[in-house]
């Protein structure tokens, strides 16, 4: 039985330095007008959850989907992290981050979820995590979590300032720049040491 979240799954935008640098020139322009102060979060609703191995259907109007490979924290009790899990946060590519990304990120099946949770005890420092993305076997992205803007502890503290993450809730560490694109027929494999592999295939919606 694959691991599945029991709580709300939150994603984090702009938590990698290169992501922020790529937008720096725009941050003081409309519509943003200023760089973000608090963590920028979004929700991946339960209809998006796909198990490891599942085929993810993409509507015909969407030629390519963006792969948001990341590792997420799973909350235990009393605000502690219980463990970590691989995630494949798919999006319809979008250039503007002004409005909430529901229609780009909350399509059915658009969140691949790792088969196992790696318990926090023994997982080490999340800033030492690294993952690789392969599409049809070819390496397309390497993510080094030492490049996070807010390391895991600080992200938790800054989110906790305005909302409580409850037991079972999930918070992604963020997706770096250079997100690969995938299309119907592609197989996406995300691997990280200690986590194994999260594989999903993209199929055209029937």
């Amino acid at each position, binding site marked *: 039985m694959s691991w599945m*979240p*029991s*709580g*709300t*799954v*939150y994603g984090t*935008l*702009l938590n990698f330095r290169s992501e922020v640098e790529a937008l720096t020139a725009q941050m003081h322009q409309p*519509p*943003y*007008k*200023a760089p*973000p*102060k*608090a963590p*920028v*979060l*979004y*929700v991946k*609703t*339960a*209809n*998006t*959850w796909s198990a490891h191995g599942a085929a993810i259907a993409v*509507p015909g109007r969407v030629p390519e989907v963006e792969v948001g490979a990341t590792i997420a924290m799973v909350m235990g009790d009393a605000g502690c992290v219980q463990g970590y899990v691989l995630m494949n946060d798919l999006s319809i590519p979008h250039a503007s*981050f*002004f*409005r*909430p*990304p*529901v*229609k780009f990120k*909350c*399509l*059915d099946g658009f969140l691949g979820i790792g088969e196992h949770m790696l318990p926090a005890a023994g997982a080490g420092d999340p800033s030492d995590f690294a993952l690789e993305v392969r599409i049809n076997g070819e390496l397309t992205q390497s993510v080094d979590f030492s490049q996070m803007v807010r390391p895991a502890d600080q992200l938790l503290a800054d989110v906790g300032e*305005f*909302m*409580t*993450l*409850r037991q079972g*809730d999930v918070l992604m560490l963020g997706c770096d720049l250079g997100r690969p694109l995938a299309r119907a027929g592609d197989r996406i494999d995300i691997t990280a040491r200690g986590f194994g592999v999260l594989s999903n295939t993209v199929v055209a919606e029937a």
Partner: protein
Amino acid sequence: MKHARVIHQGVTQHAVERDGRLLLDDGNLVSENAVTWLPPLAPTPRPRTILALGLNYADHAKELEFKAPEEPLVFIKGESTLTGHRQFTRRPAGVQFMHYECELTVVIGKTAKKVRRSDACDFIAGYTIANDYAIRDYLENWYRPNLRVKNRDTCTPTGPWLVDAADVADPMTLALQTAVNGKVTQAGNTKDMIFDVPFLIEYFSSFMTLQPGDLILTGTPDGVVDCRPGDVVVTSIEGLGELINTIEQ
């Protein structure tokens, strides 16, 4: 029928309204002051999807100096922001502008995927009231309205009742209002929504499957004012009751 979910003598249970009182599932008939009110929603096997509309009344969009949107402006809330009738909502120290938003809330009744608007009412279990508080000091133009504004603990009182869809003849002609300390500060009618309930069900279900217990908060009309600690805020909708909330420091 009007359904509630309450804690009575330590037991969480479903109840229905009976002659102004609560008939609990355990058979007790109690006054509405004898219980702790929870959101009137049965637990769901997976976390419920809570969709909320911004700028869905033309007058409110104008009030906030936005032109009316061409497609729904929607954001999502986590369940930790919900609280019940007669509960308290915290105003953080030092903020300048915290306002209520009285919203007709649709509770989905069965799995809804690619539903046509003409069939939408078949997928509605019923309706409740949500008070979708916002703290405008925290607005930022990144995925706006951002979660720091809209996903705070206890900042979405919901209830008191889930009223069966069969008991609401037309959800698009309901008067709604908010009173702060007894003075009416917001008044509107669901007929003035830009995107009506059947449209919203068609729109969302075109790309995301909705499940029983999922919520759609349909936006608020003109007339939001700052609320201070101690203020009693009553959001009410015709036929759905009065949702009472108190601001605390």
